[in-house]
């Protein structure tokens, strides 16, 4: 997928975690699975570990961990929690169930 295509159709996701806390690892696992199922080839996930650099929390005004930010497509959306409720995540990210 080209950058331009990603710009148009792709999901640019950013997951804030705190090391390997159970909710953090569960959120990443749930997100990867969900994206592979519903957005194959149309997503990127950037994992940001706030244990390593807490200052990065300011960029997206993170207050709870884990938090998922949908950067693209706009508008920016955020979902807090371990993303175990797939239906709620799909709705939160505006992804139509495939």
């Amino acid at each position, binding site marked *: 997928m080209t950058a331009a295509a990603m710009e148009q159709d792709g999901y640019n996701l950013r997951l804030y975690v*705190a090391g390997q806390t159970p909710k953090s690892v569960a959120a*990443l*696992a749930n997100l990867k699975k969900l994206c592979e199922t519903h957005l194959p080839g149309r997503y990127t996930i950037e994992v940001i570990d706030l244990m390593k650099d807490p200052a990065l929390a300011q960029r997206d005004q993170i207050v709870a961990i*884990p938090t998922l930010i949908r950067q693209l497509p706009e508008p920016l959306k*955020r979902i807090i929690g371990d993303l175990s409720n797939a239906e709620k995540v799909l709705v939160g990210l505006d992804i139509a169930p495939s």
Partner: protein
Amino acid sequence: MAGKDARQAARPRNEAEETVEAIHRGNVDAVVVQGPSGPQVIMLQGADAPYHVLVERMSDGALTLDADGSIVYVNSRLCALTGLPADQIVGRTFSSLFAGSAPQQRADDAASDAQLQRVDGDDLPVSVWMRQMAMGGVVATLVTLTDMSIQRRAEEVANAERFARSILEQATDAVVVLALDGRITHASWVAEQLAGRTPVGQLFSAAFPLDAQSASQQGTLTRFSRESLDRALATKPFHGVEVRLRDERMSGRSFLLSGGPLVNDAKETVGSIVTLTDITDRKRAEEQQTMLVAELNHRVKNILAIVQSVAGQTLRTSPSLPAFNKAFSGRIQAVSIAHDILTQTRWIGIGFNELLTTVLAPYGVGEGRISIEGPPVLLEARLVLPLSMVLHELATNASKYGALSAPFGQVAISWRLCDDRRRLELVWLERGGPVIEGSGSRGFGTTLIDRVVRFDLDGEAELDFARDGIRCTLRFALTAETAPEQVPASAVLPH
């Protein structure tokens, strides 16, 4: 833009509500708060936090799988085993971790073996334990992975240790392993026997106090003080020094001291292996060989002296060269037969009956012409040669002039023991031969008999030349009163 701003303005309220709700539901496990030096992550620890710490500290790898077989959690040890960070493992399928088939949960709750794929391409042998659990209505699988390479290595080390130990146990030499300070760390069974107790932990010089076998080697040994000997043995090759142990139990025993450095995998000297080889038997054999060579030399000289003497005396009494040839050959033959007997009996001695049968075989001892009768007597080796020569002379005379020269003549040989079995009396009686005129011949034969019996046998000979046949009586000692003369007196030329 207006729409976006409106959404941004609405967000904090929704987000705050959402955050509180997520915390309330237990969906978050950390929050970010504004500290004096910027944002700080505060963990919201639950009841399972201690277990989480324990799992992170485990020496085994651990992971959890969701109902679909996807990895949802890995501990740091598993990351180390695979060489991958956690976020590259989480979300993968369990089976993708392994080279070959993925392990399955076993009904007997036991672990199964598998090959974990590492990021560097190597496979790591692991033992995998799995169990499914229902957690809050969701089925999860708990997995532990034990690195078997360490255990395999430990088993290899244990096997190598057993192997080395069995070599030490089987070694016929005393083998000890020394640390760099000269203390014994391992000892073979023979070394323990030599030290009288287990020498492990002692300095070599204390467990095995040594003296050099020879003065020159004592110099080698005394160049070292007790401590420096220990250090030298522990660090330098040390070969072929003959030593004795300063221990009453080992008196008279000789050892060969050798040593060589013990090198580890990194080619560093970590000590040495020292052996003490018992060479007592070898040294005795060497001494015996030296003695035998000297003895052989001595005997060869004796034989040459005898041959020289016999040749000289035969020459003086022989009327012609053919007569000399015949008499000399016969006498040398008698010497040869005597030596055959001595060799066959390993110079221990021979039964008198057997000696007579062997020496007189050419004269018809088995054909009824010669009869022998007497008690069993074991002759010492020193008697074999002179008696053989005497019997040869008697038999030659009989075959030339006496009973054995006539068709029906006979020789009767009989003997008895006397003087408390210390002496033997032999009677040689000829009958049926030609009539003997006068006092008989006093040629070389009789001279030789007389000399040999008197000087070599410490006895006497009586020769009676009766008309109807010779009667010869010999009396001689069976055991030497003093050390026997090495060169027979008969070998000394008469003046």
